């Protein structure tokens, strides 16, 4: 109700609200972080941020969406409604942090613009769903999250009262009703994303419970509203409609009545009855559920005030509500649904036998203190939230699958020196001081393979600056500074490739992975949540691998290489899918290599 806009019209309750909200997020972060440190200490900082922000945003979105119907069903939740927009903006900020980190983590530093990659990383699945609907579980879940993020951004960006006034309450409300679409998109994002990767039933169960509670609350509130809307009253010949009996009215307290399917607010002030529109000019709050405070009709949602006599807000404010003519005949109240000219001053209709002002509390956000009973109930609600939100986050942290292991010496660059071999995959054979030789697969920075940099250096001694990556049986080096790449013996004869032993041939079923992420750069590096990243890496030239189960049930990755040497031709969008590869298994040093004859999908 300010006359000049501020960023936030702070008052005591808004400060308390925001402090409680900040405390809730911090407690949730502490709970989530503690469980992650205990259970999955290998989790990287990026994965922690991506998971924490998504979970917190999703849980708080449920809280945000529950406040509306809760306040309709149980008015003591009204103080939570007062500053709900700050809760909504917090959800949007957390969701945006999740989105930005995910796009950087899974789509950036590759061969395609990261935003474009969100939509195209495995775009063959868009049409696949029309050929076989069961492939819906492979559908790109990222686009649903992107859509939800756009809506949450728009809602947060237009949350200020400037937008409410200049878009108009109807458009503003309709825009903000898109939150239900955003929620649906987020459900799709979660159910087709993390639920497809994580095996614990906790995730679909929690998600289902949250959705069920929300839908039930909204349907109950809608039922209550619908029962008011369907009230039908008799009309007089001159258009006046019977809407209430005088003994139903209370002093200084509103009553919602219906005439011709439209709601109106009746108020008794100083023994006179007035009728006004039931729709607050601010956010469409139910005026008839308000009270008279400081001589003005006060909306229960955000405390906007109007004079009963002419429907105008007291100066310096300029909002005006429609007022309506009334008459009382034999204890019955009759209302004409045709509004009086705006700002018409009315003396109201003398009314007798009204009930005294109720003693129930009427909390309003701009009051410096909440009434005592409401205050106690709010404290109880905050306590429940302070226990429930961290518990949900802690449970999710506990039940996440173990993240993939491996060691990536990010930020630690060293000069690497050895004999380079281009086939079957680019690798550097480094001989240590004790004479032991170990092959290191070579990849480029970001989501790229070694590329053309190494062409023509087969069998020669080279050196360059790079970073080690290790996950047994793989040793890998990321060439971080291509400009340092040198062939040390350009005039010498190329060394012959080391001996290769054949382990057997047959069909091998497993998950197609990119060996760089699997070796320790990404945790997790498998499953659908990592699929887009794997596609980008494979598309950029990182050697592909087949993650299979050995006899002890552990995962082993077989490097995939062309049967006859050269470049392996395959569909990179098969990444993270289960495939059967027919081929010959060889051992190059310690590295198992599968010479591919054919590939077929099995999932």
């Amino acid at each position: 109700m300010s006359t000049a806009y501020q960023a936030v019209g702070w008052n005591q309750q808004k400060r308390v609200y925001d402090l409680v909200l900040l405390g809730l997020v911090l407690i949730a972060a502490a709970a989530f972080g503690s469980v992650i440190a205990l259970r999955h200490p290998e989790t990287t900082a990026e994965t922690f941020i991506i998971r924490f922000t998504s979970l917190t945003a999703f849980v708080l979105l449920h809280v945000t969406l529950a406040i509306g119907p809760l306040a309709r069903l149980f008015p003591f939740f009204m103080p939570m409604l007062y500053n709900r927009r700050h809760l909504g903006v917090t959800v949007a900020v957390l969701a945006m942090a999740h989105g930005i980190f995910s796009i950087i983590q899974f789509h950036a530093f590759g061969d395609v613009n990261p935003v474009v990659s969100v939509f195209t990383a495995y775009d063959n699945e868009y049409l696949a769903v029309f050929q076989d609907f069961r492939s819906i579980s492979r559908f790109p879940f990222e686009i649903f999250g992107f859509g939800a993020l756009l809506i949450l951004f728009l809602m947060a960006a237009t949350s200020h009262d400037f937008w409410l006034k200049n878009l108009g309450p109807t458009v503003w409300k309709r825009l903000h009703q898109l939150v239900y679409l955003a929620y649906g998109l987020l459900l799709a994002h979660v159910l087709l994303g993390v639920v497809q990767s994580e095996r614990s039933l906790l995730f679909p169960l929690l998600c289902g419970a949250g959705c069920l509670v929300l839908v039930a609350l909204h349907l109950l509130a809608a039922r209550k509203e619908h029962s008011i809307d369907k009230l039908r009253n008799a009309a007089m010949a001159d258009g006046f409609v019977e809407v209430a009996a005088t003994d139903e009215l209370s002093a200084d307290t509103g009553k919602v009545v219906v005439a011709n399917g439209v709601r109106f607010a009746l108020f008794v002030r100083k023994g006179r009855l007035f009728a006004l529109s039931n729709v607050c000019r601010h956010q469409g709050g139910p005026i008839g559920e308000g009270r008279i405070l400081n001589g003005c009709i006060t909306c229960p949602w955000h405390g906007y005030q109007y004079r009963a006599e002419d429907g105008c807000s007291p100066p310096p404010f300029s909002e005006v509500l429609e007022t309506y003519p009334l008459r009382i005949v034999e204890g019955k109240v009759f209302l004409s649904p045709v509004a009086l000219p705006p700002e018409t001053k009315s003396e109201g209709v003398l009314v007798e036998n009204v009930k005294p002002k109720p003693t129930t509390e009427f909390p309003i956000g701009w009051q410096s203190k909440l009434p005592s009973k409401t205050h106690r109930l709010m404290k109880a609600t905050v306590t429940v939230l302070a226990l429930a939100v961290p518990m949900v986050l802690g449970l999710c942290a506990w039940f996440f699958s173990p993240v993939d292991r491996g060691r990536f010496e990010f930020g630690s660059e060293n000069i690497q020196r050895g004999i380079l071999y281009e086939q079957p995959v680019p690798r550097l054979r480094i001989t240590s001081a004790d004479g032991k030789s170990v092959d290191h697969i070579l990849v480029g920075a970001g989501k790229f393979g070694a590329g053309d940099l190494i062409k023509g250096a087969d069998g020669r001694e080279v050196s360059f600056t790079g970073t080690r990556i290790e996950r047994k049986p793989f040793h890998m080096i990321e060439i971080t500074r291509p400009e340092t790449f040198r062939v040390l013996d350009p005039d010498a004869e190329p060394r012959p490739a080391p001996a290769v032993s054949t382990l057997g041939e047959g069909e091998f079923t497993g998950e197609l992975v990119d060996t760089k992420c699997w070796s320790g750069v990404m945790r997790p590096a498998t499953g659908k949540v990592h699929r887009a990243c794997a596609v980008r890496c494979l598309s950029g030239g990182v050697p592909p691998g087949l993650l299979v189960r050995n006899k002890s049930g552990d995962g082993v990755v077989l490097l995939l290489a062309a049967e006859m040497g050269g470049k392996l031709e395959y569909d990179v969008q098969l990444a993270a899918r289960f495939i059967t590869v027919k081929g010959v298994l060889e051992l190059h040093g310690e590295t198992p290599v599968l010479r591919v004859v054919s590939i077929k999908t099995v999932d």
Partner: protein
Amino acid sequence: MSETFFNYALGFAVIYALCGIIFAVGFQLRGMGKIDPAAEKGTWGFRVLVMPGLVALWPLFFFAYRFHEASAFSLRRSHRIAIIALAVFSAVLFLVALAWRLPSFGDLPVIETPLP
């Protein structure tokens, strides 16, 4: 093909946002006070806060679009429809996502060939 389409779409979004930034700065300097006197004396914090929305929704102000007001009843009805649609959509989604859940590592057959 889809990559080309999304590249163009991204290019369009960038141009749209750039136009929005230019418009929003101009609108903040002149124009905003005309449509809403309370904005003319708005604080710097307020001006920063409304920038993202102005960048996103600049055509509404540029073309001085006027919206029709709907009744409170129609807003309640659209709210009710949205909830019923959400209930049906989420039920179907849960059903298909769990019925055709993707296999996991544990579902893979064991490789008999001795592996290193």
